[in-house]
């Protein structure tokens, strides 16, 4: 289980200005649960993930993570900007998490190759990431996170750099992978459809300082397929999340709300 209580997060600029990124954020993620986080740009979603994963210490509040039994790192990140290591081959990048956990080269490579196959990068296993496109790098980052064997995945817009078609493909793929592997996932996304398709719950965050303003439980039974997106129930939930997002930004001129909305809805439609 992954739980955060009353997380506050402040950043102090070199000029001494204080910026509050997170305000009293609490959440609890069950083992094997898939939680999606949506919210306007700059509201602190990435910051929340970093705090959950222990990369940043919160200014207040606490994070609890059930300690894993294995040698693998307790959480695996998929960063918004991929975090691919340019000097390692695609295979070595995919194997990175395991290598860092002390797993031998032969075994790590074997696991990495399997995951590269699953994200469609087998052909590039021996190439360096400099030759990959943005979407391919993102798939590599996904392969690395899954290959690491960590029970918890923290994903920051893992499909954000993909074109709509590939994105839909990868969503279905992710759905399948997760249904097989049953990882605990917290995923930030800008696409409402993606959040509803993949998540068990959708957390809606407010504009900065970010707080969780709404939690929407997604009732669709597992295993799901992409087909549920065409059902009326799905459409109703979509409206619900959209309204929650709109309501999460009080006091913002209508025009900007519309602009931000277009971005929030983008991706799968």
């Amino acid at each position, binding site marked *: 289980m992954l739980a955060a209580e009353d997380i506050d997060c402040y950043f102090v600029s070199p000029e001494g200005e204080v910026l509050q990124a997170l305000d009293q954020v609490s959440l609890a993620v069950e083992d094997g649960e898939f939680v999606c986080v949506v919210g306007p740009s700059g509201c602190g979603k990435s910051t929340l993930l970093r705090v959950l994963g222990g990369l940043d210490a919160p200014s207040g509040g606490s994070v609890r993570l059930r300690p894993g039994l294995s040698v693998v790192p307790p959480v695996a990140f998929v960063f918004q900007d991929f*975090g691919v290591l340019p000097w390692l081959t695609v295979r070595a990048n995919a194997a990175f998490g395991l*290598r860092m956990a002390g797993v031998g080269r032969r075994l790590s490579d074997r696991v990495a190759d399997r995951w590269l196959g699953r994200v469609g990068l087998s052909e590039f296993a021996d190439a360096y990431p400099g030759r990959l496109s943005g979407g391919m790098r993102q798939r590599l980052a996904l392969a690395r996170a899954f290959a690491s064997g960590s029970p918890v995945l923290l994903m920051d817009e893992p499909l954000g750099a993909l074109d709509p078609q590939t994105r839909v493909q990868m969503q279905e793929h992710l759905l399948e992978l997760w249904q097989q592997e049953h990882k605990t996932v917290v995923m930030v996304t800008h696409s409402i459809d993606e959040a509803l398709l993949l998540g068990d719950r959708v957390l809606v965050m407010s504009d900065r300082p970010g707080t969780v303003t709404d939690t929407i439980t997604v009732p669709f039974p597992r295993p799901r397929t992409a087909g549920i997106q065409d059902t009326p129930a799905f459409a109703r939930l979509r409206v619900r999340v959209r309204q929650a997002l709109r309501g999460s930004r009080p006091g913002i001129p209508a025009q900007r709300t519309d602009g931000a909305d277009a971005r929030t809805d983008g991706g799968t439609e």
Partner: protein
Amino acid sequence: MSIRPQTGGEEAVHRAVRGARRDAARAAVLGLAVPLLLLSGWEAAARTGVVDALLFPPPSRIAAQLAAMTADGELGGHLAATLGRLLPGYVLGALAGALTGFAMGVSVTLRAALGPLFAALYCLPKIATLPLLLLVFGLGETPKVLAVAITVFFVTQINTLAGVRRIDTRVLETARSYGASGPRLLRFVLLPGAAPAILTGLRTAVGLAVVVVVAVEFVASDNGLGFLIWNSWTLFRPDRMYVGLVTVAVLGAVLSAALAVAERWLLPWQAARPPLFAPWRTLLRARTPRS
């Protein structure tokens, strides 16, 4: 996702390959033709008396002198003496510089303690320390090797430090998030991350090391290529002097080329980078309408 072209695209592939080959061939021809042209101009000018052949002996005479000095082993002796100072000094300075730079890169304390000092010393012309070295170590080989080592040390240190400091923070963060630490962090992240900058430092250092070893041999040696050049001046033998100059130039070029090869071998991920500037031809072609 195949990178193989569809049928009909084959011709385009051939054209691209041919274009790349032509670019490479053109670069090679230009690289050879320009020096050859300059040399033959010099030869003609010296023979016709346009330039004073006493000061600028024609290349053919220099070549003959070079052959003679190679045959009687004199040139080999000087070259060996210079290499005997250059190589140990270079290796010593490079190792110490890379280690120090690396340690300063990862340790805040070391950086605070040594940073300002090294920054100040960096600007000191290292050849100026030679008298001090001679004073301390006498007239043997040690001060000459050390003069080279000191020069190489500072260039390597400063580049290595910058290389470690400039590793992408996002990469470091990724490594941290996957629990990289200790020797694994060093091997998978810090060393390869700093490697390009270290090699840049090593390449700059080669040129400076050659300068310093020649300068040292000017004043404090009775053998070596520097001595050959200086001694030829005092004896007024420009042809011998040119032999020394040419040998130094070739030595520097060979060492730089060796490092360039090492670089390509050590940094395979950088090979994929496209050239900085597109050839002018492609830029020009883009403007002309296609038929």
